[in-house]
């Protein structure tokens, strides 16, 4: 719009532009520098999964080997911890996605008394420090005499990922064209059919994005899990308790698997979302 107007006559356009080009190049270089910094520990993690470790500490390079990939599931404690993490992540993702989607649809679509309070609680749940959440849950479960374990971890994970799903779905719902749903109703679809056949397919990208987010938050969570786990060890908790004596390279291999798997899932979701335009 404004760009079609001719520029003001006295503006030193040429100088600005060449100055801009150098600045842009500096900014580009800087951005890449920070990206390298961000990825450095990931590189270290992946690299040392291939290290011929000597002694307890896996922090100096001693040569290339694939043996840790061959023996990745040799440590029972670590393997069980990874299994526990996966089970909890799947379970809490399913529950959080179901509850969060309903919540997101309600908040995005309807105006009702209590919507403000609901928003406020979600906002508080997202912004409360994790350690306070963990401490509150411990106090809660201790007061009710609920033994800490799988159940309490899953409850906690659903609680903190629910709001993220709701927010993601809500912002998707807000972009939808309501007339499509009204058309379905005019054509005789009931409320449930309209939701199942029209609304749900339209908000699906928001739902899958929310589910992926919930899964990622759950499998990575350390702080709240540390508080609510009791004797159960998840992948991050196992790493935490083992780190003082040096981590076995199997941890690097599993970390690499999770990293690659996560990237593939995210890319698949991005491709699927592009193929299914809003």
């Amino acid at each position, binding site marked *: 719009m404004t760009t079609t*107007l001719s520029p003001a006559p006295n503006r030193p356009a040429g100088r600005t532009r060449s100055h801009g080009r150098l600045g842009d190049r500096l900014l580009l270089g800087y951005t890449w520098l920070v*990206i390298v910094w961000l990825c450095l520990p990931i590189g270290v993690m992946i690299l040392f999964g291939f290290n011929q470790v000597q002694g307890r500490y*896996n*922090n100096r390079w001693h040569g290339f080997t694939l043996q840790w990939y061959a023996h990745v599931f040799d440590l029972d404690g670590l393997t069980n911890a990874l299994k526990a993490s996966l089970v909890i992540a799947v379970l809490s993702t399913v529950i959080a996605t179901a509850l969060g989607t309903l919540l997101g649809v*309600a908040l995005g679509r309807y105006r009702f008394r209590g919507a403000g309070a609901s928003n406020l609680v979600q*906002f508080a749940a997202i912004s409360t420090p994790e350690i306070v959440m963990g401490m509150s849950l411990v106090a809660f479960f201790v007061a009710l005499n609920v033994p800490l374990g799988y159940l309490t971890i899953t409850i906690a994970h659903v609680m903190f990922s629910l709001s993220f799903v709701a927010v993601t779905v809500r912002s998707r719902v807000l972009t939808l064209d309501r007339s499509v749903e009204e058309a379905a109703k005019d054509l005789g679809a009931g409320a449930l059919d309209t939701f199942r056949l029209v609304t749900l397919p339209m908000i699906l990208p928001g739902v899958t994005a929310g589910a992926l987010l919930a899964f990622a938050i759950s499998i990575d969570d350390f702080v709240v899990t540390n508080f609510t786990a009791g004797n159960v060890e998840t992948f991050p908790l196992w790493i935490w308790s083992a780190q003082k004596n040096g981590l076995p390279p199997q941890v690097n291999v599993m970390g690499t698997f999770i990293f690659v798997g996560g990237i593939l899932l995210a890319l698949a979701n991005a491709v699927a979302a592009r193929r299914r335009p809003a």
Partner: protein
Amino acid sequence: MGSLRARLTPYALVLPGGLWLAIFFVVPTLILLQFSLMTGNEADGYAFTFAWQNYSHSLTTYWPQFVRSLEYGGIATALCIVLSYPIAYWIAFKGGARKSTYLFLILLPFFVSFVLRTISWQFFLSDNGMLLGPLKEWGLVPADFHILQTSVAVVGGLTYNYLPFMVLPIYVALERVDPGVVEASYDLYCSRTQSFLKVVLPLSLPGVFAGVLMNFVPASSDYVNAEVLGGPDNTMIGNIIQDQALTVRDYPTATALSATLMLALLLGIFAYARALGTETVLEAAAR
């Protein structure tokens, strides 16, 4: 009948998730506050005695850790703003077709567990590790030089771990800036600097505020970085709470410390949320 049903629909949708949040978030928070005023221990049970001394005792005992947490969190947040702004600016205005690729690269660390990333830094920075080992062998740094167990390592770790949470909201705010407005400022004889200071920067401030929220809260209540990268002189309030709750099992002290931390941070958050509108911050938090 139909209208009643229509009016009840949103409540039916909200109910399951709302109940979950009420029972497992709101109620536990209230119990935390209740616990923080109780006396007793695990063996003998607890009694509610309005024990305000839990607060005075834990605040006077752990005051240095409280101050240190806010200090580390504050410095890390400030560093994140300075480091993130140019990146967010470049991606938003010059990223072109590759915007989402750059954002994806910035988010890459999140595909590795937070604890593992921090431990990876510990390996990298360890006294005779990948970085310092060769430097010491070549005589470039003295043999007793170390990075771990210092406040620099802890603040560096906090900055590293929360940087993407600053880039994203600033990017979202900058991305919404209408290029026409910037163009208009040039037409009105603004220099590049003036245009940036008077147009772009003010428009991006909500993003900076959201980023501050998303950085300062988790950074100042973190204990993983202090534990893995720091030493006994770098203990933060999170370490104390974790220790009191999980090792000492002194729940009244641990809950009083948590409640103080929460109240201090929530006061700041609600001041922010009021200034910005809850939904803007929520939306920024969701991206």
